[in-house]
């Protein structure tokens, strides 16, 4: 197991988890408002603050000004270590082409001071929700850029992750698609999705996730997971992306809700669900 810095964050009842923000500072602002309106007692950001969208520093400034605890995603790991690429984990040349554009833009637009801040972030955060142990990671508890897709994360593997990492719940992001699976009450995996771009479903809203300790029944048992849609001024974001000369393919995704890149990594079910 690679060495990962872990921070203990304390005990909470209702927490908001913010997945990949990809420079979508407008969606981030709206998500913060929605989460607070729902009475969360903490928010956590799970990495990949930059990429894809415009003006990456704006997202980082919001997170820092608000004092939101955060972990590194592959973007923060790469930017803070001056890596040559984003280590997103794509395998297709076209996907890698767009990843390179996205990384080069974000790298050039992120200040050295923000990169230092990213380098000091932990890889994991542990906290408690009620009586349950929760482990926050970017991709998976074992690899920062492992993709945990709904259709590729079977129960036996979930149980192994929980066992190996001594936790009740794993919260991750990295895929851009939100889902949850509880293999027994209060134990499972939540992928908190992404604030940065829509969920490839033809809708322009993006998502974050609230997990709450409850005493209710049901398969989720003591933990209740809610995916919260975030409707924001996506047209403004699209115009800013155009002004920054980001690829028209990225802008199309913001305007239509359909992914135009990172498609080759999608498993059969997730690929079938999208337009492209």
């Amino acid at each position: 197991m690679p060495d990962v810095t872990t921070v203990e964050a304390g005990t909470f009842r209702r927490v908001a988890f913010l997945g990949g923000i990809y420079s979508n500072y407008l969606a981030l602002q709206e998500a913060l408002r929605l989460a607070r309106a729902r009475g969360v007692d903490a928010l956590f950001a799970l990495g990949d603050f930059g990429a894809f969208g415009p003006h990456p520093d704006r997202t980082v400034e919001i997170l820092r000004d608000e004092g939101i605890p955060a972990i590194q995603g592959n973007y923060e790991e790469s930017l803070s270590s001056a890596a040559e690429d984003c280590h997103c984990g794509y395998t297709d040349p076209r996907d890698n082409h767009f990843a390179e554009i996205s990384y080069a833009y974000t790298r050039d637009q992120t200040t050295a001071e923000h990169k230092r801040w990213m380098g000091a972030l932990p890889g994991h955060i542990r906290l408690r929700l009620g009586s349950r142990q929760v482990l926050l990671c970017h991709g998976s508890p074992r690899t920062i850029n492992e993709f945990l897709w709904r259709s590729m994360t079977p129960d036996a593997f979930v149980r192994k992750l929980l066992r190996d990492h001594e936790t009740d719940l794993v919260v991750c992001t990295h895929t851009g698609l939100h889902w949850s699976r509880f293999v027994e009450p209060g134990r499972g995996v939540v992928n908190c999705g992404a604030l940065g771009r829509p969920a490839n479903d033809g809708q322009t809203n993006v998502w974050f996730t609230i997990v709450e300790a409850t005493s209710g029944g049901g398969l989720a048992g003591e933990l209740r997971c809610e995916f919260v849609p975030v409707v924001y001024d996506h047209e403004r974001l699209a115009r800013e992306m155009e002004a920054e000369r980001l690829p028209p393919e990225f802008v199309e995704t913001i305007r239509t809700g359909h992914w135009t890149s990172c498609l080759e990594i999608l498993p059969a079910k997730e690929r079938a669900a999208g337009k492209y």
Partner: protein
Amino acid sequence: MSAALTYPLVPFYGFDTLWVQVAGTLCNLKCTHCFVSASPTNHNHEMLDLGTVKRYLAEALELGVKEYYFTGGEPFMNREIFEILETTLAQGPVSVLTNGLFLRPDSCRRLRQLSDASPWSLDLRISIDGWDAATNDPVRGEGTFERILQGIAHLAAFGLNPVLTVTEACAGAGSSEGRGHFLAFLRDIGLTKPRLKVMPLLRLGAEVERTRAYASWESLRGHSLTRGESAALVCSSGRMVTSKGVFVCPILIDSPEARMGETLRETDREFVLRHSACYTCHAEGLSCRT
């Protein structure tokens, strides 16, 4: 011994992928580049029956396996293949590596039903070795190009979107121009979301006759691997089951030293990357995973 003269060890990080050679080395085709020389008469490895597969699936469940792969030979020659797939899809995602020649409408309907009934992905990977009969058929056999296209069309008619797997026997397939050519070809035959995987050749089995064997310099002797490089190798997180036991990977099933045990648990240990094929996986970035 000097590190320059030794072979690297790949650790075993845990059971992510289980490969099952469900059809043994039996295939209806006799492709000229097949690294296990599968053919209608090659009984080096025999078919696996449902009961045998179930025993390994039970062990895999305990080990927390993440993905299952079925290969051969040709998996659809196994008479119990649909029961095997149904049983496996009840516990995790599945990829089937097929030549596509058995994908008739009734089979494709059944596959669609199996896919719909499972929360996990079912991926069909179809091998093709060119964008026309003139490039494909010399490798895969006379008339196969048209029959592969029919299989793809039948899958597409039932809403299943295969991953087309091409080897570098198709000259230029690995370049970005070659990929572009192939993706355009797949769109032309009606796949609106084309999926393509290009794989390097392994200088084993029939391929040795078609082109050449490995040269002495094609070896990992003296190399050392980072953790990331080890993790990228199939043998650091997967194993292959055949009728002869559990092997280190899907490639080295004809190398006795690559047989690691009878049960999956016995094979939870490191492996010395002594074989020339290990060079292809490391240096050319070959991964058998979908």
